[in-house]
């Protein structure tokens, strides 16, 4: 759902703020594209569905229900399959959330972002801390054990102590899943411009590292599993859907600007492809109406690119890249053969950043925080 009622100051996603959305038309196109792409992929069974994008909680529960029905028509959608919806506190009334549950949603991800009104204003959010709390409480009532919250840290001017307080407040509020994102100052956003012009201070690197370490330590001590760079879950409440991205499973992207990775068997393809749908909603709708789907670009991923993606994504998780997943993309060369011999990866293991054992290749606790410094070495070794 690419629409928002207001653009946040830090956001550079493909979102649109429009006075009125022709929801019936968008819905029709979402259904049509989902069915077309499902047929193309010849997928039999769906593991999870995720309603994301701009602000999906602005869509009607009936639209969500219609999409789920269309998916279930085109492929098998097991009764217990994870169906997540991203919701904003400002569009999360109890009736609305109940409507989504009735439509088939069984997991909610709430964009809390902060529990401080000043910070929320800086981020350009439409809700207050109190509204966020209320939304989470309502959601927890409707989706117990399956409500996640998003929090941002490293805001301009945010102190170590302020972050510790936010974190403590969040712990008191949250269910069994938290996503903690370091704020990225994306080019072209209002917030980045303010920092560049000096109106707001740029957060120092060391402070960001401290904030991250604090959060990891506190959450793990509270019983959370740090299962991905920015994601924490307890009682096994990890996001099945997101985990499939990090495992480089197949996924189909439906809607303006959505991305997919799948093998289009239905078109006679036999290689995994990277696909992107048309970004702009009006153009996307026109193309879906005329062609059944609006795939703007498709690229066959080479035998080298596939394990490269797996490495880049898989090492973000605590289980890392398992031998099983690796073998799926690189049946000839084992992880051991590529990274077990003396070379960059070997040196990184010696230095305590990586581990390669019977479970696969993964980052150590320290290595996870500097993964982006490890990856170029690993990719360089893989290329040779």
């Amino acid at each position, binding site marked *: 759902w690419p629409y928002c009622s207001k653009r946040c100051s830090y956001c550079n996603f493909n979102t649109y703020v429009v006075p009125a959305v022709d929801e019936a038309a968008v819905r029709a196109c979402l259904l049509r594209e989902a069915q077309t792409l499902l047929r193309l992929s010849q997928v039999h069974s769906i593991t999870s569905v995720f309603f994301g994008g701009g602000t999906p909680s602005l869509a009607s529960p009936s639209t969500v229900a219609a999409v789920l029905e269309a998916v279930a028509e085109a492929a098998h959608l097991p009764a217990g399959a994870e169906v997540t919806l991203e919701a904003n506190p400002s569009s999360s009334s109890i009736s609305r959330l109940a409507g989504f549950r009735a439509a088939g949603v069984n997991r909610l991800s709430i964009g809390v972002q902060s529990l401080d009104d000043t910070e929320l204003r800086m981020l350009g959010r439409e809700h207050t801390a109190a509204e966020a709390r209320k939304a989470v409480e309502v959601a927890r009532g409707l989706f117990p054990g399956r409500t996640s919250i998003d929090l941002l840290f490293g805001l301009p001017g945010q102190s170590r102590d302020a972050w510790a307080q936010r974190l403590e407040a969040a712990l008191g509020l949250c269910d069994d899943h938290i996503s903690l994102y370091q704020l*990225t100052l994306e080019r072209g956003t209002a917030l980045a411009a303010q920092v560049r012009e000096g109106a707001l201070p740029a957060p120092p*690197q060391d402070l960001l*590292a401290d904030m991250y370490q604090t959060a990891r330590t506190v959450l793990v001590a509270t019983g959370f599993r740090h299962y991905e760079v920015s994601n924490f879950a307890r009682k096994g409440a990890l996001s099945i859907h997101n985990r499939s991205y990090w495992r480089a499973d197949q996924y189909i992207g439906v809607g303006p600007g959505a991305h*997919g990775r799948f093998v289009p068997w239905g078109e006679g393809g036999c290689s995994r492809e990277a696909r992107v749908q048309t970004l702009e909603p009006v153009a996307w709708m026109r193309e879906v109406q005329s062609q059944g789907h609006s795939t703007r670009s498709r690229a066959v991923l080479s035998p080298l690119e596939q394990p490269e993606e797996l490495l880049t994504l898989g090492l973000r998780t605590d289980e890392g890249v398992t031998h099983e997943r690796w073998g799926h993309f690189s049946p000839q060369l084992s992880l051991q053969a590529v990274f077990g011999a003396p070379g960059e990866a070997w040196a990184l293991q010696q*230095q305590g950043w990586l581990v390669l054992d019977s479970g696969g290749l993964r980052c150590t606790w320290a290595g996870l925080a500097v993964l982006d410094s490890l990856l170029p070495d690993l990719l360089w070794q893989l290329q040779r």
Partner: protein
Amino acid sequence: WGARLPSPCPAAAPLCRPARLPAACERRCSSRVKEKLDMSMYPVESIRNFSIIAHVDHGKSTLADRLLEITGTISKTDRNKQVLDKLQVERERGITVKAQSASLFYNHEGINYLLNLIDTPGHVDFSYEVSRSLSACQGVILVVDANEGIQAQTVANFYLAFEAQLSIIPVINKIDLKNADPERVEKQVEKLFDIPTDECIRISAKQGTNVEKVLQKVIEKIPPPQCNTADPLKALVFDSTFDHYRGVVANIALFGGEIAKGHKIVSAHTKKRYEVNEVGILTPNEQPTHKLYAGQVGYVIAGMKEVTEAQIGDTLFLYKQPVEPLPGFKSAKPMVFAGMYPIDQTEYNNLKSALERLTLNDSSVTVHRDSSLALGAGWRLGFLGLLHMEVFNQRLEQEYNMSVILTAPTVPYKAVLSSAKLIKEYGKDQITIINPAQFPDKLLVSEYLEPTVLGTIVTPHEYIGKIITLCQDRRAIQKDMLYIDENRVMLKYLFPLNEIVVDFYDALKSLSSGYASFDYEDAGYQSADLIKMDILLNGNPVEELATIIHSDKAYAAGKLLCERLKETIPRQLFEIAIQAAIGKKIIARETLKAYRKNVVAKCYGGDITRRMKLLKRQAEGKRLMRKIGNVEVPRDAFIRVLKRETDK
């Protein structure tokens, strides 16, 4: 003469000198139809050999253009702008790098005169060439701008002419300018050069005012050369150029005898023998003549293959009729060295051939192959001075379309060896050091020497304080200070050369709002407290950043280098100590902290394609990393540190 060429050359000739304008070609074509000139019509008494000397932009080339026009050497057109400045860089920068000459014919009071205008390079870097050119003259026209007055280079040029005992005709140019104050400038000339004010000729070369008077003064005041056609041939080589079709064209001044096609001649310097193919005069393009006679100036082509065979200052004589060579010959001595590397190593061969072609015409550039672990294969080039280096670089860019990395310039230091072992190894007790890697340890040396120059600064007096401070910062010693009029001062300082090679001129110009001028001349070597400073990354020396430096400057320079490196080396997984060291002693340190967090926050099904591209580019970049110990340094970090500061 076109018919003599091995190919239809009028069309091809401009290719040899891409900077030549169409106007020059027209003149060539018209001269082609003429009969060969008989130069015996011009006996010694009717010859005048002279140069024009001036500070940059005081109008030397414009005056030369007018003289050429008045004498009918070139036709009057609007395009005659600095006809003698053939190189594109010369026209752009308003300086003359390569001396050009022209023979002018002028009738004065019924007598046909042959006036040889021997143009000189317009910069101190080429003072040796200037002195050789002047040695072919009996007089000079000293041009001074009526607005700017005497400048540093005016002083330097005056003394060159004065010491060569030449007649000096002072000319105050640009009197048409609104702010012209010829009276004040005449007083400066009187005060500084002891020339009566009434001897100055006020002209406007641009408008042609009084230029004819200058020619008359040349005839009246400058004596004819003292020499005899009956003597054996004695010719001074004062310049040479390279022509792809005909080989070396040597510009010569005859101090005795005559020269013609078929003569067998010998170079006093190389002792090599040649047979003359062609002689002629320059008008300003080559025009063949039957002969050249004593006192005359022209060119000779004699089968020389390389410019080094016709070195400036050399003497030519007839085979089996040796003469005492003319005094003052020396080989070009580079004073400034810099590393030159292709930006991309795949360009190495192209750059190599461009360098070879360019040095064909400029034998004063020395070329040594060099290689740097960071910058790859390249060369260490020696130049006569900073401007020479810049001009050379600019010519590479403009005429050969090459972009290069030029490292910070250094000067040739010397070491007087005390170690018997080293003396034996080098076969001498004094060595010149152009590369810090060759710097011998203090224990093996009795003293180090650094080159010095005597600098002349002319400035409006309000800037004196700042300029004196600047000079003191540069370790300079004041030698003289003189008011040349009520508000202009001339300062003389002895500078260590290395203190002025990088940015002195820019600093001087900026603190004087562009009003101070600067010129310098070689002043020999002086003892200096030199040390070698190493740059260490986590304790490992970075070879390409080692520098020889005066001990007083080491701390500041070390600190600056460390700071610049800290900005350019990316953070890594471990802490990096960036240190400047003299021997075992650390004199500066910066610490580049380890990455504690470097992982992108969000990475989902959204477009990881762009992210993969970035990571793969970084992976590719690993290939271009220079590893010093375990520290990875991107190549461009060195480029940024090694490059001259002004290029930042």
